[in-house]
Each structure stands twice: as structure tokens, then as C-alpha cells.
């Protein structure tokens, strides 16, 4: 009889249970294993669901790079999110401290202090901050039906579902937990990923970590020497995006994906070892 082994998610969740986010020594980090990542986009979809993001907005995204000439072309896919930089230029340049370094080193955003000046968007080297140009999900206020006298209009659906008229659609009570977390969002303020701090407060992993079918995202406390994050970082030399910017990102990448191979050279070291 074999002993049941906890999944990676279970191990990380157990670590999180033992972590006091308010403890000053906690430094949360995410390591993304590019060998495991298949580029399926489940992280992006899960994130959009969790945070009620509408089309055109993303906290979790990806960058791509192609090299070579057809038919010899390589393609690299790198999942991205807010890097929760230790030296965050968005927070440095925010005139009202709407962006600030919060518990666990997360770069937090207080919507109520945001004046919509967009300085953070100009300062972020990673293009990871997005502006609510209008109230989210305006479609739910539309009164035109797809088929007249045939289907209900979005507004009618909202009314039939007995949603409070002033409450926006997709109200998410899960996001009410934190001091600066809001169950809905509104126009004129910026938004960004915060490692799903509302979930962390409930002892749950960030949604993108949980959604990843390949367990390519490893999450935990960098200051805990026994954390899974440190275990991975101890094995592989990590990269960060735009290291030259000096922002010290908390999101790190290991095992740069390379699915190909070619003729061995005479000087290849260690091949016979």
C-alpha cells in the first residue's frame, strides 16, 4: 500500500496556513517554472473570473518572443502578472500613496485614495497596471435585447436575478475581506494584481496558482527557508523580468523552456558524466 502524497497545491496551502501575513518577516514570492508551463492560459482565465475583470483588462497575462526565420522559428511564452517589486516604482511615484507596500511585501492598491493620475502606469516597466476607463461591466446596464421580444436584455436579466439596482453585476463578496479590498470596482481608478490578497487572508492560494493544471506556479514565503519557493530557488538559478530596471521583482522564473536539441559539439561538457 502506497502512502498518499500531498499535491503541490496542498503543500503550499499548508505553508500558507502557518504563515502570518501580518508578520513583518514575511516576503511572499511566486516562482514560475517555464518547463512546466504549457501556455494554456488557465491562469489568465481564472484571474479574470476571480477578479471580475471584463474584456480588455488583465491582471494576469503573458509575453511572447519569437526568434529565427520560418521554418526555423522558436517561440517563447512567458506568463506575467504584477511583479510585486520590492522597490516598486509605481508606489514610489504615486502622489497619494494609493499604491503602497503592504503585508507580505505585496504592492497594494487602495482604490479610495487613487485619483486616476496614471503616474503608476507610466512608471511600471512591466505594463501591469490597468485603468478603469468606465464603470466595469457596462453591458449589464444595456436595455437592448439581442432578439427583440425574444430574449431578455442584460438589464432585465439583472433585475430578474434580483440584483440590487445599485449593486454592479458580478459583485464578489470574497473581495470584502481586506481593509483596502473592494467587492466591485469603479471608473477612474487603476487596478492591478495583488496576489489575490483576499484569498490569502482566507488561507487560500492565489487563484492563478490554484488554476494552473501543470503546477507551474510555486507560491510561498521567501523568508521561510523550508518553503517550497526556496526549495525551487535552491535548485535553479532564477531570472526576473527586466532585471536591469532594479525593481527587485518578487515574481521569478526558473528553467527557461527549450524543447529542441541539435548536434552535439565536441566541447560539450559533462555529456558522459
Amino acid at each position, binding site marked *: 500500500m502506497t502512502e498518499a502524497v500531498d499535491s503541490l497545491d496542498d503543500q503550499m496551502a499548508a505553508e500558507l496556513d502557518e504563515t502570518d501575513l501580518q508578520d513583518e518577516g514575511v516576503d511572499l514570492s511566486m516562482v514560475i517554472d517555464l518547463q512546466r508551463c504549457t501556455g494554456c492560459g488557465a491562469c489568465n482565465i481564472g484571474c479574470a473570473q476571480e477578479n471580475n475583470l471584463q474584456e480588455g483588462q*488583465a491582471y494576469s*497575462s*503573458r*509575453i*511572447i*518572443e519569437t526568434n529565427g526565420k520560418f521554418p526555423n522559428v522558436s517561440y517563447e511564452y512567458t506568463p*506575467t502578472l504584477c511583479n510585486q517589486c520590492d522597490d516598486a*516604482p509605481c508606489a*514610489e*511615484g*504615486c*502622489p*497619494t*500613496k*494609493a499604491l503602497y507596500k503592504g503585508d507580505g511585501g505585496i504592492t497594494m492598491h487602495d482604490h479610495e*485614495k*487613487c*485619483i*486616476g*493620475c*496614471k*503616474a503608476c*502606469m*507610466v*512608471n*511600471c*516597466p*512591466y*505594463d501591469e*497596471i*490597468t*485603468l*478603469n*476607463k*468606465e*464603470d466595469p461591466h457596462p453591458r449589464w446596464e444595456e436595455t437592448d435585447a439581442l432578439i427583440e421580444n425574444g430574449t431578455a436584455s442584460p438589464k432585465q436579466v439583472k433585475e430578474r436575478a434580483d440584483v440590487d439596482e445599485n449593486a454592479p453585476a458580478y459583485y464578489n463578496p470574497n473581495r470584502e475581506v481586506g481593509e483596502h479590498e473592494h467587492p466591485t470596482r469603479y*471608473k*477612474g*481608478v*487603476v487596478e492591478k494584481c495583488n496576489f489575490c490578497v483576499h484569498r490569502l487572508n482566507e488561507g487560500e492560494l492565489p487563484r492563478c496558482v490554484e488554476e494552473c493544471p501543470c503546477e507551474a506556479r510555486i507560491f510561498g514565503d521567501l523568508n521561510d527557508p523550508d518553503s517550497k519557493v526556496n526549495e525551487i530557488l535552491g535548485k535553479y538559478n532564477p531570472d526576473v523580468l*527586466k532585471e536591469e*530596471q*532594479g525593481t527587485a521583482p518578487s515574481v521569478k522564473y526558473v528553467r527557461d523552456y527549450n524543447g529542441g536539441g541539435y548536434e552535439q559539439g565536441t566541447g560539450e561538457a559533462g555529456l558522459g558524466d
Partner: protein
Amino acid sequence: MSRLGGESALQRARDAGPRAYAWIGLVALGLLIGVYGALLTLIEGTTVLGLSDQVPWGILISTYVFFALLSTGICIGITSLSSVFGMTTFEPLVKRGVLLSLFTLAAGGLVIMAGLGQPFRAIPQMLLSPNPSAPMWWMIVLYSVYGGALVAEFYLLDQAEQPSQRLTLAVGVVALVAPILAGGMLGAIFGTAEARPYYGGIFASVYLLVTAVFSGVALLTAVTIVERRLTDATATAVDETLLTGTLAKYLGVLAGVTLLLTAFRHAYGLVATNEALALAHEHMLFGTHSAWALGVGVGLGMVVPFALLALPRTRTVGGVFTASVLALVGLFASRLEFVLGGQVVALTNDPSHQFPLVSYAPSVAEIAIVVFGFALLAFLYTMSRLLFDLDERPDHAATDMTHPNSTATPEVTDDD
């Protein structure tokens, strides 16, 4: 005291005839268009602006920079030389200069507020939750101090009976130091955005401050020439030699320096090994923005004015006026080129974004708000022109000077 009564102001407006009515109508139309743009943005949100997550700052920011630096430049380049350093040459320009500084600052404030996502919480949050590490916070504090100093300076110039020299000098010093620091901080907002090397780091502050003086002197010169043409009082108070002599040469030098700094900016960028930086400069100078960024911004705004002011043949009142107006048009374009240039190259190759180049075109609402800024400036200055005697010299000069045409002769003042 030189305040003109309300009745007198109305009489002056009536005396000006149909030309004045046409001007007031034009300004009113501008204000209406502007109110439409501002209300539309307030109600609908910034979705009516031509911005995107990749270009969060557009023509509203560049217009704010244009206005704020006009204000800064007038004070550093003209009025402070008189109020702080006792230079008598520019005294006929001081009162209108202080008012123009104040009103360009107000116009800039209006334009930037209209473009904020949450304009009503801007001032309270700046006070309740200040961030001293943010250049934008410092800029707003310093421009607020500057605005207060300008009001005080104008009060002392216009209303106070024999104000104390010490107080006048103190206010003048604040009105000189505050805009230098504020303009520097405005540059730092861009310069500290290390992800966008187009702004040039610390050079952004230097570039914006120097070109601020060019724009400020150009505006004050253009306005003064128009006023000389419209009223005899100004024609008497401001000697033609001041315009075609000192101011023309001053503007010419500033045009040359601005041209040189702009050339340095682009030359460094074009030869940079940083591909994104070189691409941004190439795109702004020779790509789709070339006509206005290079043609209007550099050609019409710097080269032509420099030529007009360098050649003795064209250093006439008409030539100086043309050079000043072209400089202002060019600098308006240059401000947009500067702001936009830092954003035209995508930071990352995210397939849901534009890559490698990012497009931007001002929306109707943005243009309406820009019109609002110009209309507000025109409205406030026109009203002030009717209410105050802007041709009056500062008090100490009025007692020292006996001949209005002796403006070009520098005099040693008490402060010396």
C-alpha cells in the same frame, strides 16, 4: 492703486467696438466647447479620452505641461528679473507677466484636473495622504505655493499703497524659487520613469526648465505686441525698441538654445544602443508623427523663429510677433512629442497589446478640454485687461522713472 472701476471696464469694452465683441464671442464659444468636453469626461469616464493602458498620458498631460511651463517661464525669464534682480528693462511687462503666469497656471490646472480619473478627490487626497517620494506630489505643492505667491505679487503691484521693499522682494523670491523647483519636479515626474528612457532622466528637468523660459518669453512678447496694436496706452508704455531689441535677441537666443537641446535629445536617442529608445526617436521624428513633431515642433517652432530673430531684416515688430506665435505653436507640439515619445514603443510584447509601436490620437473630448484651457486663459486675461491697468510699472520704478520711453536703459535700483 491702479484698479479700473467696473463701469470703466465696461466702457472700455464698449469702446473697443465689434472687434471686442467678436473676441468675447470666440472666448465664450471656447468655454462652451470646453465645458462640454469636461462634463462628458466627468459623466462617461476617461473612456471618452483617446488613452489606453499603453498610452496613459496624452494631449491633456502635454497641454498641462505646456501651460505650467509657460507660467514657469514667464516668471523665471521676465518678471523675476525685475522683481528680484531689480532689472528695469522688463518693468513695463511685469504686471501683465504676473497675471499671465497666474492664468496659464490656472489653465494648466484645469486641463490636468479634467483628465484625472477622480478629479474631486485629487486635492483632499494630496493633503490627507501625501507621498513625499513622489515628484508629482512635490510639483503640486510647489505650484500651489507659486500660485499663492503670484496672487500676492499682483496684489502688491496693483493694490498695495507703497508696499514694503522687503515684503515685495520676499514675495518675488518665492515667485522665482517655487516655479524653478516646481518645473524641476515636473521634469522629475518624467525623468524618474526609468522604464521610459525617452524622457532622459535628470535631463528632463533641465530640458523642460530651459524651454519653459523660451515659451514664457514668447507668450509675453506676443501678448504685449497685440496689446500695443490695440491700445495706445500699451504702445506708449512699452517701447518698440524693447520688443525689437532686447526681447527679440533674448527670444532668438532662447530659440537657439531650445533647438540645440532638442537636437541633443534626438541625436542621443537616435544613436542609442537601446533599441526601444532609438525606435521611439525614429518613430517620432520620421514616422507617422513626423509632420507635427518634426515639422511643426522643430521646423516651425524653433528653426523659423530662430531665423526670423537672427536676421536684422526680420527683427521688426511683425517679425518678432510671428516668431513668438510660431514658437508657441511649435512648443505646444513639442510638449506632445515629449510626452508621447516615452510611450510610443510598447514596454512588453503582450499579444493583447500593440507591439512594437503604440498608436495614439486625441479624442474629441480631449481636444475640447484643450480648447477649455486656452479659452479660460483668454477669458481671465481679457477680464483682467478690462479691470486693471496692466501698463503700470511696479511702484518703486514709477517713483524712480520719469520718462516712459527710458525702458531700455538699465538702472541701478535700491537693491543694488
